[in-house]
């Protein structure tokens, strides 16, 4: 596979206070930095911060949205590089990289701010796909 000739996929996320609340609720996570503005400021953030797991979920969505239904996600990893704040525009990007191990493909992931600052970077490993299969479903 040639990463330079492969299609890339991009989505823009803008997590709202309601989205952070619902993510806290569904994961039963009461950490106040995600919903209590005063507390977040006391910890030194400008506002409530986006969950690390939600940033990872945006990456997971990017991959599963992109792949055909019969493909399988084998690995997903990400590392947070700087906090994302509620309301921030987060540009999520995926691109196919060189071949992984036999029968698998690698997808390089990143999330950047409007200013180009790296928020998180990641990697997904999926069952290897033919070029014809690598089209966004939606």
């Amino acid at each position: 596979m040639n990463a330079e000739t492969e299609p890339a996929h991009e989505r823009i996320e803008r997590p709202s206070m309601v989205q952070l609340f619902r993510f806290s609720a569904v994961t039963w996570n009461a950490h106040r930095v995600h919903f209590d503005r005063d507390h977040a400021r006391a910890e030194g953030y400008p506002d409530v911060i986006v969950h690390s797991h939600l940033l990872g979920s945006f990456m997971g969505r990017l991959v599963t949205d992109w792949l055909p239904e019969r493909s399988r996600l084998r690995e997903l990893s990400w590392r947070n590089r700087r906090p994302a704040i509620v309301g921030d525009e987060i540009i999520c990007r995926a691109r196919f990289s060189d071949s992984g191990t036999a029968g698998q493909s690698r997808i390089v992931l990143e999330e950047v701010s409007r200013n180009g600052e790296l928020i998180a970077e990641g990697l997904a490993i999926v069952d290897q796909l033919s070029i014809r299969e690598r089209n966004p479903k939606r």
Partner: protein
Amino acid sequence: MSRLANPSPHQLEELVRKAKGASHPPVDEVLGEIVSTNTRRFAVAIGDNNPIFHQVAVARTAGYADLLAPPTFVTSVVSWQAGPESQELRADGAMADPFLGAVFPGLRLMGAGQSIRFIESPVAGMQLRRRTAFLDATLKHGRSGSFALVAVQRTFDDERTGQRVIDCREEYIVR
């Protein structure tokens, strides 16, 4: 509310040294069933309307035994059961994790990322068991000062078959 004080680099170094030297027996928990209402809610919360996470028929056509959980569902849920009483949470609302709470009491926590390996696809109806083990703590120096990077391993097994479903290395920033 006043701004929380940062521990000094020396205090952090001492905590990291203690964490590395201490014995941390792994923690085993029965998580219970992956409930489709919860996985669907999770998909809604992350804004994912992919039908494979919402319609059993679509998931089955794609080869899954039941409704597929979004990939980060299993490793994002903090507490699978009712969870502790509110007064048993840390002052910042976080769970008093056996490693992070006992070893780094009162310090600020932030998720730093995960590495998830899927051996089986997590689907509704699966009964899970989780083991959490301390891996490492490392002192780091970043743009905004010193912090500890703490790594734990979480493994998720299918209660019925005994098969491994997910391996996850999770890292936290503690400062």
